[in-house]
């Protein structure tokens, strides 16, 4: 691996505003309002997750940022460049990995990457292209035709294509859909490195544990609006609690003091939410007093999936 090359051309000299700024973005398709006046800011250097159920409007928002669609109202900019008025600078600043698995069947992987460099007005940088291929584990596929690649490989070529012009902001729309576990980890290792070197990352995903481990801040969208926006830590602290899962043997009930606060799980297991970890001691004491033998015990951390489910449920459409 060639470690010496800086991976990305970071930021915009002398500009310390938001990497992505969206103010009052509206977009309708016919009668249907896909985005209802959405505001969002992503700061430079963030690893930001945009979460939401299918149809929430994530891809539509990304299309507006990338200039693939035009907003009906609102102002969107990347590193201070308006996506409409300063479209050349704005598009040079972003790399987008589209949600759809698109490719041009006429070309090989390397040809695809050289063409994409040219479209961005730069001479294909074979060192950088090799580095991308290496990091995305595509080196032995460099001269294969795009048609001959598996879905996961095509997805990684899309990531390489988005990075070929060394953008300051990388937007990934469900990049890990259809990519196996091992390659997902390689991908995240690489993206994380880019982020550490200063690249701003905006990510949408349905794998919430990915968002939880990678992202410093999270926005949750529903029906064209942002309904929650905070640091990952705050969201976890405010909406999810650690829990204790235990089993006292098949068919045996919990003592009365515990039963009201417990959720029954399959196979005779119960889950109890915890305010703090000291409560574990009281729960165990209650079981001992009732003469119950604990067969199984597990302490679970708060997780983003629970936060997500709760926030989605609590917010009316």
């Amino acid at each position, binding site marked *: 691996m060639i470690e010496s090359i800086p991976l990305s051309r970071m930021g915009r000299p002398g500009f310390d505003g938001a990497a992505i700024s969206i103010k009052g973005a509206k977009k309708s*398709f016919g009668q249907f309002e896909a985005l209802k006046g959405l505001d969002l800011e992503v700061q430079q250097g963030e690893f930001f997750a945009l979460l939401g159920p299918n149809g929430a409007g994530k891809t539509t928002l990304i*299309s507006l940022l*990338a*200039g*693939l*669609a*035009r907003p009906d109202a609102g102002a969107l900019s990347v590193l201070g460049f308006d996506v409409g008025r300063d*479209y*050349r*600078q704005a*598009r*040079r600043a972003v790399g*987008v990995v*589209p949600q*759809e698995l*698109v*490719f*041009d*069947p*006429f070309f090989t992987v390397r040809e695809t990457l050289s*063409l*994409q*460099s*040219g*479209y*961005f*007005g*730069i*001479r294909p940088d074979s060192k950088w292209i090799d580095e991308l291929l290496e990091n995305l584990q595509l080196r032995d596929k460099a001269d294969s035709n795009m048609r001959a690649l598996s879905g996961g490989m095509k997805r990684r070529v899309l990531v390489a*294509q988005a990075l070929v*012009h060394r953008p300051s902001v990388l937007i990934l729309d469900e990049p890990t859909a259809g990519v196996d576990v091992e390659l997902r980890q390689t991908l995240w290792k690489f993206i994380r490195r880019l982020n550490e070197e200063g690249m701003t990352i905006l990510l949408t995903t349905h794998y919430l544990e990915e968002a939880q481990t990678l992202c410093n801040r999270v926005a949750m969208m529903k029906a064209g609006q942002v309904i929650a926006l905070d640091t990952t830590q705050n969201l976890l602290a405010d909406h999810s609690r650690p829990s204790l899962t235990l089993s006292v043997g098949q068919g045996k009930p919990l003592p009365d003091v515990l039963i009201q606060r417990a959720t029954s799980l399959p196979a005779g297991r119960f889950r109890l939410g915890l305010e703090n970890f000291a409560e574990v001691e009281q729960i165990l004491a209650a079981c001992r007093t009732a003469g119950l033998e604990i067969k199984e015990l597990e302490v679970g951390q708060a997780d983003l999936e629970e936060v997500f489910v709760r926030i989605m449920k609590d917010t009316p459409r």
Partner: protein
Amino acid sequence: MRGFTTLFGKEVLRFWKVSFQTLLAPLVSTLLYMLVFAQVLDHHAEVYPGVSYREFLIPGLAMMAMLQNSFSNTSSSLIQSKLTGNIVFILLPPLSPFEIFAAYVLAAMVRGFAVGGCVWLASLIFFPHLPAHPLELVIFALLGNALSAVLGLLAGIWSEKFDQLAAFQNFIIVPLTFLAGVFYSIHSLPPLWRDISRFNPFLYMIDGFRHGFFGVSDIPPLESFLIVGGCAFALSCLSLSLLSRGWRLRS
């Protein structure tokens, strides 16, 4: 500039990689037309003094082949990219509407010229004479190719399915080329049809091109030049404005 040259190169490479279909097939079918007509209609009266019917056919057929191929290049490239979704590779980079326009149109013209050039070379077998006005010939070939490449671009932008593109081609382009005097001089038509033909821009391309070939034509070449040039200019402005607005490309 590099954005434009890359896209232009890619468009040329696209048809070159399948040149069997995009260059050889149209060449063969045009030569078959020539061969068949040359045999069957050899005794047809001279169209112009000193120009036999089969000679008359050559520039018309060459122009028709060029027009169909340049149309086909822009329109099929665009519709394929739209349907497969890889049009995003062109929409995401900072390419200007003019760069996109110029790259698609010029690449289509290269294909038109390649087919037309080969047809002309092969026709030397039947008609071993050099063109009367080579410069005029080239100007009309350029304008005609440009006009039909731009029409192809418009058709590709407009169509959302293959069916729609096929309809555009079969109900607009093919009739206009066939009724543009490829196979006959408009002077041989009844007056009403002659007047109607006057509204067909393809007529002027073919007639002007033929003037470059033989030095005789139905319409004064300057008139043809102005009409074809005017149409090409107007349609170019239209497609540039559609590209700038992102019509049917950036929803």
